[in-house]
């Protein structure tokens, strides 16, 4: 073939009657080209309209096949990703402590934590001991980078798996809720009161056994609407947020489309709750919250 670019189009070496799904799904090219013209030139299509008709049919078939394969698995990918991110972060921090302790015996001015390890990783090693310390610090740096990569993967995937939940909770909290529930479907089936205390199971079971107050919030404490609300009103805020998060998870699981109105409703409700602080009243107990910590 004289034109180099026709070699890399999805239709290269094919005839119109072949099954093209794999070519669409797994192929690649360094740069786009005028594919319709190229396809006509090599006799794959009679004219542009013919090419587009084949392309339409093929892309729909390929996408349908890919959807069937990947559907339902996505919330599970999110669950694994958030657990892997937490493991990577925790392990990096543990290793950074070890690295700091060790590095302080060999180098001057060693800072603690991940930043300290990153600094150690850039140093020149002059003997076998230092070589090991610097190498360890490099692994910590890599592990932290991997945790960051996992976080951006979660931030990209969550809005697509659960658009309403991710909008309301933020991608990482949305992924944590899905992870704690075991999947989007089981999160969607939980009552709001359970979602409110997901992640506070120890406190909840202590309470049920009569050994403590009921927890006001679980992992949703990390949401600014909860931790940014004054302590007296946090129970109300957590309850309102959990209620809307539950609705968001149900919309995401059963319908999948984005509903701006539920986000506005939550914003309104939060404004009302926070206005109590300005009114100078006593806070949460006015509507029946019990006080207690997580």
């Amino acid at each position, binding site marked *: 073939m004289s034109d180099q670019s026709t070699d*890399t*189009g*999805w239709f290269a070496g094919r005839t119109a009657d072949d099954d093209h799904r794999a*070519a*669409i*799904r797994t*192929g*690649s*090219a*360094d*740069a*786009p*080209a*005028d*594919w*319709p013209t190229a396809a006509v030139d090599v006799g794959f299509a009679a004219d542009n309209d013919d090419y*587009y*008709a084949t*392309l*339409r049919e093929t*892309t*729909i078939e*390929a*996408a*349908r096949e*890919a*959807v069937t394969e*990947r*559907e339902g698995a*996505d919330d599970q990918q999110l669950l694994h990703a958030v657990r892997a991110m937490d493991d990577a972060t925790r392990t990096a921090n543990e290793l950074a402590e070890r690295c700091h302790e060790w590095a302080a015996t060999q180098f001057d001015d060693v800072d603690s934590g991940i930043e300290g390890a990153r600094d150690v990783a850039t140093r020149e090693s002059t003997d076998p001991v230092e070589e090991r310390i610097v190498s360890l610090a490099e692994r910590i740096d890599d592990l932290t980078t991997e945790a960051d990569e996992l976080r*951006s993967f979660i*931030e*990209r*995937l969550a*809005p*697509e*798996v659960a*658009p309403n939940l991710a909008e309301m909770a*933020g991608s990482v909290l949305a992924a944590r809720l899905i992870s704690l529930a075991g999947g989007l479907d089981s999160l969607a089936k939980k009552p709001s009161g359970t979602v409110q205390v997901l992640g506070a199971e120890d406190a909840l079971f202590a309470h049920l056994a009569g050994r403590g107050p009921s927890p006001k919030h679980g992992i949703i404490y990390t949401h600014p609407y909860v931790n940014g609300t004054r302590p007296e009103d946090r129970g109300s805020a957590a309850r309102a947020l959990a209620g809307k998060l539950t609705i968001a998870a149900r919309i995401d699981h059963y319908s*999948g*489309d*984005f509903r*701006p109105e539920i986000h506005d409703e939550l914003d309104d409700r939060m404004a009302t709750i926070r206005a109590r602080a300005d009114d100078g009243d006593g806070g949460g107990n006015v509507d029946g919250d019990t006080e207690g910590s997580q």
Partner: protein
Amino acid sequence: MTDLPDGIQRREFDGRTRLATRGEPVYGEPTDGEWRCWDAGRSKLGAMLESGMDIDLTGDEGVLYLGAASGTTVSHVADFAGPTYAVEFAPRPMGDLLDVAEARNNLFPLLKDARKPETYSHVVESDLDLLVQDVATRGQASVAVDNARFLADDSQLLLAIKARSEDVTADPETVFDSVCDELTEAYEIIDRQRLEPSHDDHLGVVARKR
């Protein structure tokens, strides 16, 4: 003011003048004969057109649409434009997008990652007239820059930037400035406008490939 092609009209719906295109209804939008309302509250591109940004459309454009989601907006684009390539990363909305594609003969759905243009360069043609981007990912500017390869020179980019996708804690204006700054690597910014009240913390950007 936006010049509308023949495929987009301003028509009366529920006593308000709103945008409309001709095609199969997709998301329960009001219709008037063969015209269906383009709901600016649900479509950032709709909001950009309705607010009169400096957008130049002629109809019959070759379009690459990144972040097609369930197809709400891309359905309207395919109604007025020419060949429309719709890239979406998530399988769930793709299911809905397939229904939209079935009802149109110029819409090509691709289950691909917009951050990896090489995975669809063998399908999407070069020298397109319009790139529409609405992806909720960090690095929205670099996605637009990477995908400039599909555009002819001087072609338009219509971009909705979501501040919260870049940095939840930063001031949206700071985020918008830094994204726009990064865009200038491949584009010249023609117009920018906040999309409030229909889309909080979003900026609409019209740009031209350098």
